[in-house]
């Protein structure tokens, strides 16, 4: 079982790395513990929302901000990649999503503000087309519609908070809230997944249109929780807009996120079509190393457990949530290769006393140090394994939570690491 590139992790970074490597002609295997963090995300690609992260005003253009970014954050993954590589990765992502019928709107050179389920706004730069009509710079009147039983979207709460922002002059549109009665599914719970599956069906959509029509006032847009279809979201959204004769947009909800799940499904099936093999659901993965490099990875614990080998490896296992990092009361470590991680010894310095501060939490930017070729390095700056690359959340110095840069960092570093790993495998 020999591959050119093995990617560890099936989040956005890992999947983009696999894509880049297979585009270069590499034989690629993805090994992952679970389905990755995409279903925990909004499905939007955040570029850079705040810079400096403590600024109260969102960045208007991530691309322009990156010009100065390097001086402030020389170790940030964006600074290591440079503009050209970031842009080519994001363009490739957009083409890929479009070909899978999840077209995205937006550019890396301008930020949108989109509404959230809580009635706050979130800055981002690439959004699924199904969300683009909700941009908070667009004036107009919006009907927010909730579903009885869908507990993570309260149209009332969102309406109150968004109208407050409107009254403060921070966003353009005004909002009104209504709720639709429960679809009456009996034992089947009303949740994002079940609603999304229902919206894939023409019959459910037609019934929905009949229920909504009398609620809509002339000239109102319709804002809905992000549950409009799982496999056929673009089609469902187009169909609903046509039949209701108005603009519709989705609003991201807390996880599990349907737009994130859509993106995961799209990327997985695209890669499968390109011959990339994926093994998911591993509980035990053990590295075998040899003189300065990774020899292979053993799956499982028995003596017969197979050894998977490749010429190059991409580590995209994420931060603590993804399982790439873990911690004991006084120690932070990388879970697969025990790569060097820099962190303060005193646990008190891992956190700020305040939770919600624009300064972010120090532990969110803990991770693996890499060089400009995204290769993990030791504190002296020496490459740890000649055939290992890292991408996404596992990289140190990016606090994607505070910066609002998660998707962008994952796509850009994932794609670059995949290319670099394929080039390394060729040698």
């Amino acid at each position, binding site marked *: 079982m020999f591959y050119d590139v093995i990617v560890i992790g099936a989040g956005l970074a890992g999947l983009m790395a696999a894509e880049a490597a297979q585009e270069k002609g590499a034989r690629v295997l993805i090994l992952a513990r679970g389905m990755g963090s995409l279903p925990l995300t909004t499905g939007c690609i955040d570029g850079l929302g705040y810079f400096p992260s403590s600024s109260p005003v969102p960045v208007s253009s991530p691309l322009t901000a990156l010009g100065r970014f390097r001086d402030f954050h020389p170790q940030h993954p964006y600074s290591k990649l440079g503009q050209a590589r970031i842009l080519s990765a994001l363009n490739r992502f957009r083409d890929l999503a479009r070909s899978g019928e999840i077209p995205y709107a937006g550019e890396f050179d301008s930020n949108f503000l989109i509404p959230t389920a809580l009635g706050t706004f979130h800055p981002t730069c690439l959004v699924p087309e199904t969300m683009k009509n909700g941009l908070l710079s667009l004036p107009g009147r919006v009907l927010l519609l909730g579903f009885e039983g869908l*507990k993570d979207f*309260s149209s*009332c709460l969102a309406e*109150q908070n968004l109208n407050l922002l409107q009254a403060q002059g921070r966003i353009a549109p005004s909002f009104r809230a209504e709720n639709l009665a429960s679809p009456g599914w009996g034992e089947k719970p009303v949740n994002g997944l079940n609603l999304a599956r229902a919206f894939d069906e023409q019959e459910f959509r037609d019934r929905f249109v009949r229920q909504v029509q009398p609620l809509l006032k002339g000239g109102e847009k319709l804002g809905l929780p992000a549950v409009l279809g799982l496999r056929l979201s673009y089609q469902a959204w187009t169909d609903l807009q046509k039949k209701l004769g108005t603009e519709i947009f989705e609003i991201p909800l807390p996880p599990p996120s349907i737009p994130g799940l859509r993106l995961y499904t799209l990327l997985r099936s695209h890669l499968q079509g390109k011959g990339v093999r994926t093994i998911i659901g591993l509980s035990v993965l053990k590295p075998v190393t040899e003189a300065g490099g990774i020899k292979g990875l053993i799956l499982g614990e028995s003596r017969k457990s197979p050894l998977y080998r490749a010429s190059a490896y991409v580590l995209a296992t994420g931060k*603590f949530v993804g399982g790439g990092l873990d911690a*004991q*009361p006084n120690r932070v470590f990388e879970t697969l290769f025990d790569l060097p991680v820099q962190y303060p010894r005193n646990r008190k310095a891992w956190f700020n006393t305040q939770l919600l501060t624009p300064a972010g939490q120090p532990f969110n930017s803990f991770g693996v140090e890499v060089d400009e070729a995204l290769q993990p390095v030791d504190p002296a700056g020496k490459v740890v394994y000649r055939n290992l690359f890292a991408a996404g959340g596992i990289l140190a110095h990016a606090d994607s*939570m505070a910066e609002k840069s998660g998707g962008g960092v994952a796509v850009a570093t994932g794609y670059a690491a995949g290319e670099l790993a394929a080039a390394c495998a060729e040698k």
Partner: protein
Amino acid sequence: MKTEVAVIGGGATGAGIFRDLALRGIDAILLEKKEFTSGTSGRNHGLLHSGGRYAVKDPDSGRECIRENSILKRIAAPCIEDTGGLFLSTPQDPPEYPDLFLKACEKIGIPAEEVSVPDVLQKEPALSPQIVRAIRVPDGAIDPFRLIRANVEEALRLGARAFPYREVIAIQTEGGVIRGLTAKDTRTGEELRVECRFIVNAAGVWAGKIARMAGARLEVVFSKGSLIVLNQRLVNTVINRCRPPSNGDIFVPHGPALILGTTSLATEEIEDPSASEEEVDLLLSEGERLIPVAGVTRAIRAYAGVRPLIGAREAEGDARTISRDFLLLNHGDAVGIKGLFSIVGGKLTTYRLMAERTVDTICKEMGKIVPCATAEKSLPFPREYSFHDLGSRLDRISGAGSYSEILCECELVTRGEVLEELKNLPFPTLKEVQERTRAGMGPCQGGFCSPRLTALLAETGKIPPGTSLAVLRKFLEERWKGTRPILWGPQLKEEQLIQALYSELFNLDHL
């Protein structure tokens, strides 16, 4: 407003006195500056002491505990889990202590019985095999929130009046006699004037401050105790270390969780105590002596309470040597302020006795002879009250096919239950809703259900429009204080996910 007795402090002592007064037909009001049970009464182990812990050093306290232990098991059964308790001696503990302990228990009437270590290990396999001796006592687990609520509710039913969020700001006296007090509504700023002949100062750690308002003197020593909530009920029995009381030597099982405590640190920080990283590390390293997996079990929260202790002058150094007994002070005798009584110290287990003594004294002062009924009369609890049991909850929910109704997945609390509780709460905070329903008490500590609860408060008009984010933010910052000291392993993962929700998605760090 006019009343006979104004009770200050909505903790266990104040609530117990409030009930006792009502049962004896004395007109009373209860004033609390925050929510009921928001002070030390809601920040402890939830341990129904057998008295064993005090038997050797403080036999009077031990005697009171065992008496009250059996009374509470009768009158407050639905909020007690009769787990029984064990005192375990490890090789690191003084070898002579178990014999001292047995003798002391016998002397004051605590049924303590030595049991065989292999039997104990068979029943409680999580305990350390290093244990050398084991002694069984009648400890239990008690839910202070329900206990206090039942006391307050019975008094209300009897016509007494209770006022949460009213902070006493002045006490009026005339010629050395109590005339009344002024309290401020901590939410609206509105002042409430109360005319009364008697004031009971049951303000706990704030008792000194209240006494000073009346020109009286009362010295209270503050001792902070920190505790950790573990996410697994590793033992079904209250576990004590058989040694002179020290750090991290008690585990109390509560529903699906296990609480490890405590520390004892002199403190001046009484308003909003929190556990430090050092205390957490100390508790776990001590706790591991009794339950070796305690240190690797997921901790979901750490919190702290401040004990108001009396007898400062006798104690030097460790506040544990100060009596955990209580002091009832008739300021009429001491400094000549007639009608003012302070009741300080004591324990949750002895709250009823403290109330009885206090009200006896007030009755004497009034010249009334009405016997106390609180030891016989059961507290009122809703019929279906039982300890929070996830198994039967899930049964009920799946039987009704109402999965969409679950607002808190960790503790299986439904929308209907929350709505029912909201009926009794005119101005609820998220914390109150939590304490009453257990929503948000599980592994994610309200990370996922608090926006849903906030939405429910907004939808039912319980909070004014435009305040929801402030309500949510306040709750999250309070929650953070409890999770921050225990963040590593699984709980750090959980916390990063919570950050992804509130900072990354909702952008609350910038709004």
